[in-house]
């Protein structure tokens, strides 16, 4: 076993133990599979179809608004929930989580790899691909928004989508079956849609459904954009809190 002498041992320590390997695996799982391209195709059809439909109906001079709130926000969030709901709970059920945990891997790394893998998928797949495609369509049809405000709206959408990723991971750490992990975020979106008409101001904006409207505000500029920034900041804090909850729970989990 002469080759053993040449091995370079892994040096990751503490919470980063195994993070690199797991993240690479997550990214490969996200991008390297046929399922991913099928998902991308389906969501492109839905989101861009919505935009084209909106353009065809000459939607009050602002077809980008509906695209951002419903297409990118609601559909994007649904996509993220569908894609990530099984990330933790599926591995717990199948036994692969226990297998991974028998390696020198930190439990924080397991959760963070899931989040960062989904983050690249959400940012690149939904926000970048769909956002760029929609911008091109809008520009071609003479509805092009200012690039900076459009980017700001896309950033708000990204935070909104990542909130659902973090929520799915956190629920996956707490539950042992897929049902609640899938149902709770869906109920949150539905309840948000119903409640936002009965709430005003920041309360409405903070609802999951309200945030997609916030993304619209972010694209509008002016004071509304500043408020949108504040709501996005609150969502960013919620993402961190959910991840901390997921890590804490998963650390206590006994395989």
């Amino acid at each position, binding site marked *: *076993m002469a*080759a*053993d002498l*040449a*091995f*370079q*041992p*892994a*040096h990751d320590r503490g919470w980063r*133990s*195994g993070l690199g*390997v797991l993240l*690479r*695996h997550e990214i490969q799982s996200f991008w390297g*599979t046929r399922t991913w391209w099928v998902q991308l195709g389906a969501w492109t059809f839905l989101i861009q179809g919505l935009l084209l439909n909106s353009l065809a109906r000459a939607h009050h001079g602002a077809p980008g608004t509906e695209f951002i709130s419903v297409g990118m926000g609601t559909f994007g969030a649904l996509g993220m929930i569908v894609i990530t709901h099984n990330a933790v709970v599926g591995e717990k059920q*199948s*036994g*692969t989580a*226990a*297998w991974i*945990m*028998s*390696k*020198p*891997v*930190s439990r924080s790394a397991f959760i963070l790899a899931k989040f960062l893998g989904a983050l690249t998928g959400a940012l690149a797949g939904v926000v970048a691909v769909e956002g760029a495609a929609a911008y091109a369509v809008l520009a071609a049809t003479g509805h092009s928004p200012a690039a900076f405000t459009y980017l700001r709206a896309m950033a708000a959408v990204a935070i909104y989508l990542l909130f659902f990723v973090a929520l799915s991971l956190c629920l996956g750490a707490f539950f042992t079956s897929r049902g609640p992990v899938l149902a709770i975020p869906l109920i949150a979106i539905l309840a948000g849609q119903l409640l936002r008409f009965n709430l005003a101001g920041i309360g409405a904006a903070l609802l999951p459904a309200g945030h997609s409207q916030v993304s619209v505000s972010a694209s509008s500029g002016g004071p509304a954009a500043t408020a949108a920034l504040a709501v996005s900041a609150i969502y960013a804090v919620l993402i961190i809190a959910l991840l901390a909850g997921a890590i804490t729970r998963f650390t206590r989990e*006994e*395989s």
Partner: protein
Amino acid sequence: MSPGTEQTPVIISTRGLAKSYRGVQSLKGIDLTVPEHSIFGFLGPNGAGKTTVIKLLLGLARPTSGTATVFGLDIAGHSRAIRRRVGYLAQDPRFYDKMTARETLRFSARFFYTGPKRAIEQRVAQALELAGLSDSADRPTKGFSGGERQRLGIAQAQINHPDLLVLDEPAAALDPIGRRDVLQVMERLRQHTTIFYSTHLLDDVQRVSDTVAILSKSTLVAQAPIDELLTASGGATYSVAMRGDSKTVWRRLKEQPWVSALSVSHANAIPHLQVAVRDEARAERDLLRLVMADPAVTVLEFGRTRHNLEDIFVNLVEGAEHGR
């Protein structure tokens, strides 16, 4: 350190290790000592707590009380450092379905080594070869049989040249050929590593283990080198196969104060006398002489009966149950 192991470094040591799940005690304060380079068979009926011990040692579960060290490192604070030097095969090993066996081993290796790529590939190929999986190396594990998955489990468990291999029921789900293969792999690995494995297959233990511990109802009921356990289990028994009328022999033996029990069984119509004795030295000196002194019998076979591990296991487990 247990008697008899003073000279051998200890790999695993537990003191009063206990675990409760929702108020139910699944492990009742066990003291375990696993010497280096042993093949340590951890025996017990299903549900005795074997897997719980393994999970505690690997940091996959936390003890309710007691302490344990692996390589001298406390399991509570050095779990990852321990796992860096351990290879583990779960009772029902699960891998990512879409990965091939080679990809699974490559993935496992990267937790321990960052490179060079050539050395990792070479190590992966060695592990595939050792587990007899070279031919199915590039098939997704989704289509693997139970035996193939088990062998892949062993391959991934020793991808990092572990100082300790922990195998949870490595042969339980296998057919006889699969079992033989797994035991052969274990025997090959013993020169490099200590093997701690749980099982309820007593034949396997008797075949490959040098030390055993028996767990029953969450309690450790025995722990010793296997030879010691087989010989020190309530006196010796001798077997005498003979032809002819054995009534006189029977009567004479019954009169001896060092004979504790007599029984007879038949194999191919030949009576085999089982003589349990209290004094081995007297038996070795006088037993055969007494039998042969009777001209009515011809002795065909004579020998000491080694206790079967199964007998000892059953006695200890049932004894533990009756003793509670």
